[in-house]
């Protein structure tokens, strides 16, 4: 292997570790969930995660050092369509024309089954 290949592998490893660090969010589904449903939820969770990062993270995440933290949203705040109404900013940031109801459901799945870490803080909105 020449130097070029080593550099390429090294940069890939660095990129992968950075990605893991930034995306170090895990999920936990109830044990009684069937494999089929679980797979479906997993796909929805992944989609919801990307959509959260695209549409919600900028306002809701907090920075602690170099790490970004996703707040804990209480279950009653993740009440479907109510999300659009509870927060006055959502009139602008989360209308139907920007995030569809399908997508909102994915974001709720992501936030509901995300494993909370010790640094997470509870957010009311």
């Amino acid at each position, binding site marked *: 292997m020449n130097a070029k290949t080593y550099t390429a592998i090294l940069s890939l490893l660095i990129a992968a570790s950075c990605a893991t660090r930034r995306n170090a969010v895990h999920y936990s589904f109830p044990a009684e969930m069937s494999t089929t449903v679980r797979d479906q939820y997993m796909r929805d969770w992944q989609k919801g995660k*990307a959509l959260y990062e695209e549409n919600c993270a900028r306002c809701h995440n907090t920075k602690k050092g170099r790490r970004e933290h996703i707040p804990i949203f209480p279950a009653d705040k993740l009440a479907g*369509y109510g999300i659009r*109404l509870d927060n006055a900013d959502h009139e602008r940031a989360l209308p139907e*024309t*920007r995030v569809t*109801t399908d997508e909102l459901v994915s974001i709720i799945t992501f936030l509901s089954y995300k494993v909370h870490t010790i640094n997470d803080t509870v957010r009311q909105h």
Partner: protein
Amino acid sequence: MAQYSPDTFAVCFFLRAMGSGHIKRTVVVLLVVATAWLCICSRSGTPPVYSTHYLTKVSALRSAAEELLQIIAAADLSDTSVIARIDSAITRARFTMKAADFWLRYLEPLAYKHINGPLPVEWETEVFEKFEKPYRRTGAGFTLAWQHLHEPAPNRDTLLRLVKEAIDASAIFTHDSITTQLSTYHHFYLCNRLLLLNLAAIYTTGFESPDARSTIPELRHLLDETALTYTAFAQAFPAQALPANYCRLFDSMRLFVSKQPPSTHQFDHYTFIRNYVDPLYTINQQLILQHRVISHNLLDYALNKQASSIFDKRLYNGQNTKGVFLRVDDTATLAAIENVGRMLFFDPLLSANGKRACASCHKPQQCFTDTSVQTALHLNAKDRLPRNTPSLVNSQFNHLLMADGSHYTLQQQATGVITNPAEMGCTRADITTRVLQCADYKRIFSRLLDATPAYNSVSEDHIISAITTYYASFSNGYSLFDSAMNKQRTLAPAAQQGFNLFMGKAQCGTCHFLPLFNGVKPPYIGSEFEVLGTPADTLYTALSADTGRYGVNPAPETHRAFRTGTLRNIARTAPHMHNGVFSTLMQVIDFYDAGGGTGHGLDVPNQTLSPDSLHLSVYEKNAIISFLHTLNEDIPPAIPPASLPRSRSKELNARVPGGIY
């Protein structure tokens, strides 16, 4: 609006009360209101004048309903004079309801359906719930009570139930969760927006109004009462009060209505909407932006704050045409998505035999439908499909899609056709494989991946979303009617008469609601279905065998029910009805004029259309057709791609743009 001082309001109230001989009840109502007012003000600081005004109206409604209940409870229903007495009590109750309509419809529309429900049973799929199975909701209130009262043998218990539910529903409007909304100005402009949309779509047509003779008198009362509401609001929120130009125009509208004949048949709907309702809507929309009105009602998400007129295509958000590309704002990227969508629309790649494209049946030169056949050819090239090809123009302005409402997103609709074995017959897996086998498509979609962070690779969603993005490019056109409503043009006298017939005597507007002319009515959260009794042939030998909505949601009410389609471009989209049975508009109007299937002697036990004749003359029918022609929109010409991307799969390289069909 200086003429509506609180003194005038009080005097009006007492005069009305004395005129109807209910002084005692009025005093009781006022005492109740005063107590409620004291309670509310001590807790939430609601501006007193305005909240008292609201509570007075809600209490008056409740009292009128209670009075009605007592009359029914003590009545001998075999006595015609008693029927007449109940009839007038219903009319009085409806007037008190109209006085509060401004708030009731907006603040709690579900409760309102128990006060003024138009149908005994409705199957609902609203906003969020459209993802779930439709659910049954029973209607109640004054309209249904009036209808039942005038049936051959009215039942006292049924009448009591219909009125009792209205009383219970009216109590909901005094709950804290509702009244706290009155403590800020935000709800007011949204209530007013809904009022103006209903003035254009519902209040003048007789919809929800059982006795056609009452429609215009009720409208006058509603407008007078709304003026009083405006005054009370102005006193509570002077900084956000309606400006003088709005009040002047509103007063002119009241004057106009007061001089109109008291029948919907003679009412000048054209002038009413064009000169008053729509300009008022424009001002109200400006005020919503100016005062930064914030919604606390999920129903508002269907409506766009940027629309400057009722006849602005942005009025109703409707479907997400962009699919996964929803958040793309960059015009160059959007143009690229639309262009690849157009290529796919004309590309037979997505059909099992590689010969049929979307454009094969949704022909761009025929308003994106096929006007040459009653129903399209099956993919097996032998049989016929059961339903007429619907035009794709304006398909985005729907809550549910398809004649039976089986799809709730445009992406489902496009996927449904591509994967239907009778239509295009492609498998879901093949959609992505076939498209990515073409290097050009692969390159275009790979570049578009940047616009969809939720996806790691090009998927079926990207392909379908590009096709539906293309739909929007031919749904943004305006019609002569729209231009006339925006005062840029005028309609010819025959078309104006036709429009007034459409909204009045012919009752078309009670199902094809302005401005979409389909079954989506204010507050734009559901699609209506109707059972018309459409025949299988023009000789009316039998009913169409198609069960319609029943196939999606089996229930007695949904048997042979079909979603109300738009009348925009209707003069270009023959043949008509779900089965394409009628080839001319005159045949369609004759069908309705005679009372649908029942009127033509067919057995349609659950027909929602009145079986009575409309008594339209030939001249009147032609006037309606003249008006319908003004709904033809300016649709930009669709240019088929000169060539199609080459595929790695050689047998697919004989494809012809637009397909062979």
